[in-house]
């Protein structure tokens, strides 16, 4: 008994607070895995299990003969193997490093596509992939971006450096020479990824009239449509991307991947619809990775804590190829390292280095999360060296409101970054007051005096949003008096639909509060759903559309002899139908200030972290939907927590990924998640968009890494203790007291009247007790894990 899949429950959602809720709650979502086309076949990708080497053989004969198999395709079946394009024309230096849709002659990362199998069922396709015989002559593998290259991934690029960016402003040598104090830190962030709960998928179907129908593209639909059209030499208008529900985006999903070519290609070859849904292991191997960077960071300051200069050498691990969006990472890193503080001089060098790992891209708060961690760690080290409270160092240096708009020049290679508006100190102080900093300090001190390892840490950050260039929306008042909005932006769970409804209500009144909203509809223009831009861009375009529509409606109303007021559905119906297109353009991103605070305790015996509390404050300019804004900040904070304390994607020296399941990719459950306090500020001064809004979708994650690393260092009583994310028990071990702490204390101070055993027997007993204790702890751990997995 098949239920209808589309959101046909619109009329009866009185009980739901948001129109985008009912179908998801009723189990009637239409995610790409739910899409079924008549006659469809299923595609599975054959992936490399070697990290680097020359492909000697990909033998598909046996696979082709396997039951239910319709086709097995390799690079040899293409006249030339296309490469994924760069999502910018401005960085031709990365063109030599783009990824072929199928490995062609050489493999460069574990998981790289080698062939595709198309069969009657996913199971039969998987069976056939095991019959594909691959021989790779392994080459030496490079996994450490910051070390001299083991072996080149690319001919003629002996150091594996795809590009180097150098930003410079002011005389950094003079500034450093004259400074009272210079702190030097070496910092690293582990590889991570957005990890939505839904894996990627794609359904492709060619219709008889030569149109290509796709289900699956979500983030940058217009770009994907154009890129796929290019790959198949058809006009973009011939490609239709049908709307699907999206199980989380977070940056990596919706980018252009090899499968965006492979699936439609397969569909053209077998002349049937082809469906592909990756499993979680494939997702780990193939989705854009992110975050992995290494810093040599130096900060120069005066004796009383005024920041003077910044020098940095950064390595960004790009993975094996430069993917469509990856060029943005080294550039953004340089742009965002200075942060919300003024510097007399900066010199930042950033190398984009290729390694034999899954290629990198962006993920929520890209480059802001990483640079905030590095910078805010260095500021705490500086504070300690100067004997100044870390919070005071921030308060002393934050860019003042009367300095806005503030321009941070970056030299010849990059356009300056312009912080358009905000009151940074107000937001920081507000966060600290809400968090109850005085009480936190008192509690932490009391607990530390009692022997606990506990500390608090703060991180300040800027979140940029609203990248352009523009958006277009279609607004209709139908003959029946219903409002309909069409946009190419995607509903990814960020409550885009609700935002549209709220803007309409604000602009046109209550009668317009329940529009039909068609998201993911390409046709009229638009760029996509990324960089927290939708409220600003789509909302801005909608405001334009509403004003046009109201003007037309008012004119018609007065022409008909009415008073021009449009209060209720009846008066709207009288002036219907109307259709307008609204447009919005943003030339510069906007910057929103935020601050995180974390309280963390460390178990003195095991080194295990307990993140007890996270507070986040963020200035979003204007919150169209405060509940949704808070929900974004909360969810993002937990995602930041994951990368700060639990989750990473390490590779071994052979380039093998060590984490490919949720069993060791530790995503926080409700147990690990502390109370998250959210403070939302709406400060004026945003001129870049009609709604005076700043994007809020990513901000909640940006300062979490820095705040937690600062809190743990404080807990350990060693300002420069934590230099790497995620913070693991191994990282804190060097600073823990001798283990087991309690027993060591007892042994040092024996009580009268206790054990009459000889010293040796006592030690044996202690040893046995410890052994039993460890066994019990391990047993409890395993039990908990098994219970969770049931």
């Amino acid at each position, binding site marked *: 008994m*098949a239920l209808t*899949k589309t959101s046909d429950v619109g009329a009866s959602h009185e009980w739901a607070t948001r129109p985008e809720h009912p179908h998801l709650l*009723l*189990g009637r979502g239409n995610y790409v895995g739910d899409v079924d086309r008549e006659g469809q076949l299923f595609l599975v990708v054959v992936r490399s299990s070697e990290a680097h080497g020359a492909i000697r053989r990909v033998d598909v004969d046996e696979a082709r003969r396997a039951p239910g198999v319709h086709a097995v395709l390799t690079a040899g079946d293409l006249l030339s193997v296309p490469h994924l394009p760069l999502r910018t024309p401005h960085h031709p230096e990365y063109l030599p490093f783009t990824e072929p849709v199928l490995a062609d002659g050489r493999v460069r990362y574990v998981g790289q596509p080698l062939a595709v199998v198309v069969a009657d069922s996913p199971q039969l396709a998987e069976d056939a992939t095991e019959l594909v015989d691959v021989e790779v002559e392994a080459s030496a593998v490079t996994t450490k971006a910051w070390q001299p290259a083991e072996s080149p991934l690319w001919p003629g690029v002996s150091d594996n450096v795809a590009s180097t960016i150098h930003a410079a402003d002011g005389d950094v040598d003079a500034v450093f020479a004259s400074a009272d104090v210079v702190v030097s830190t070496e910092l690293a962030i582990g590889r991570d990824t957005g*990890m*939505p*709960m839904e894996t990627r998928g794609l359904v492709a179907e060619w219709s008889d009239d030569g149109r290509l129908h796709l289900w699956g593209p979500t983030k940058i639909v217009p770009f994907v449509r154009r890129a796929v059209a290019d790959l198949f030499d058809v006009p973009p208008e011939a490609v239709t991307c049908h709307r699907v529900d999206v199980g989380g985006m977070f940056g990596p999903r919706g980018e252009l991947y090899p499968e965006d070519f492979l699936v439609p290609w397969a569909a053209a070859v077998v002349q049937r619809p082809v469906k592909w849904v990756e499993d979680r292991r494939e997702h780990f191997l193939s989705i854009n990775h992110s975050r992995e960077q290494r810093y040599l960071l130096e900060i120069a300051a005066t004796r009383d804590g005024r920041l003077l200069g910044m020098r940095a050498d950064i390595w960004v691990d790009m993975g094996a190829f430069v993917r469509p969006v990856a060029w943005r990472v080294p550039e953004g890193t340089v742009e965002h390292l200075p942060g919300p503080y003024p510097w007399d001089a900066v010199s930042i060098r950033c190398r984009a280095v290729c390694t034999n790992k899954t290629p990198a891209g962006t993920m929520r708060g890209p480059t802001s999360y990483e640079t905030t961690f590095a910078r805010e760690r260095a500021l705490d080290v500086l504070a300690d060296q100067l004997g100044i409270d870390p919070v005071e160092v921030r308060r002393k240096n934050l860019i003042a409101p009367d300095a806005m708009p503030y321009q941070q020049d970056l030299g010849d290679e990059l356009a300056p970054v312009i912080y358009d508006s905000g009151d940074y100190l107000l937001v920081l102080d507000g966060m600290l007051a809400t968090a109850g900093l005085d009480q936190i300090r008192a509690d932490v001190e009391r607990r530390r005096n009692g022997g606990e390892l506990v500390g608090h840490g703060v991180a300040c950050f800027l979140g940029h949003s609203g990248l352009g260039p523009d958006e277009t929306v279609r607004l209709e008042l139908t003959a029946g008096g219903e409002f309909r909005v069409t946009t190419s932006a995607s509903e990814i769970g960020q409550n885009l639909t609700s935002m549209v409804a709220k803007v309409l209500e604000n602009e046109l009144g209550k009668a317009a509060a329940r529009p039909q909203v068609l998201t993911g509809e390409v046709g009229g223009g638009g760029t996509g759903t990324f960089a927290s831009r939708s409220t600003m861009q789509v909302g801005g375009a909608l405001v334009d559309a509403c004003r046009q529509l109201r003007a037309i409606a008012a004119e018609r109303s007065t022409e008909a002899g009415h008073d021009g007021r449009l209060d209720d559905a009846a008066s709207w119906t009288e002036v219907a139908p109307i259709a307008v297109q609204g447009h919005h353009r943003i030339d510069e991103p906007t910057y929103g200030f935020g601050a995180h605070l974390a309280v963390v305790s460390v178990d003195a015996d095991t080194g295990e972290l307990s993140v007890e509390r996270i507070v986040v404050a963020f200035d979003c300019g204007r919150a169209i939907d405060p509940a949704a804004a808070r929900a974004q900040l*909360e969810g993002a904070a937990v995602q930041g927590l994951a990368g700060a304390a639990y989750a990473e994607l390490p590779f071994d020296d052979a380039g093998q990924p060590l984490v490919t399941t949720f069993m060791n990719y530790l995503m926080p459950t409700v147990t690990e998640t502390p109370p998250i306090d959210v403070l939302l500020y709406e400060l004026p001064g945003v001129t870049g968009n009609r709604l005076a809004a700043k994007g809020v979708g990513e901000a909640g994650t940006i300062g979490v890494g820095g705040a937690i690393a600062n809190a743990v260092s404080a807990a350990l009583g060693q300002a420069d203790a934590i230099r790497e994310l995620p913070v693991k028990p191994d990282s804190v071990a060097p600073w823990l007291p001798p283990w087991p702490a309690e027993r060591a204390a007892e042994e040092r101070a024996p009580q009268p009247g206790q054990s009459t055993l000889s010293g040796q027997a006592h030690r044996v007993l202690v040893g046995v007790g410890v052994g039993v204790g460890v066994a019990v702890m391990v047993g409890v751990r395993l039990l908990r894990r098994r219970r969770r997995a049931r």
Partner: protein
Amino acid sequence: MTDHGQAQDRPILVNGQPHAPVTEPRVSLLDFLRDEGLTGAHAGCEHGVCGACTVLLDGQPVRSCLVLAVQATGHVVDTVEGLGTPEEPHPLQVAFSREEALQCGFCTPGFLMLTVGLLREIPHPSPAEIRDALSANLCRCTGYTGITRAVESVARDEQPWH
């Protein structure tokens, strides 16, 4: 050895409706349900960790990605599709909407069925019992606060929730 002949005649009862049982051994209960058009249960990992596939088997929350469909022959399965309708949603569905307990919705059916299983066993669970049960499933969007609030509100409700 089980009596295959007789066992194969018994249907799988899903939301009160009989479905012809599956004979191919390697088909998971998740795949079976989704092939039957009940696509509310989702494949998040197929390793049994994330819980997006959670359904009730004889009233117990299970990872349908790890249960073989043949194991469900003759047994009772409850999925999110049987929970409520657009006109008459389940109190949990109403609470989830009210408390911002979902964003992308992919983990939501799993959390709903996990919670139904909890409430059948413990009609008014304490916050600690709720946290303990909810820790079985993963959500990447919400940070769990809305989900916890939604379940706590239904747990406090004096009205019979079923």
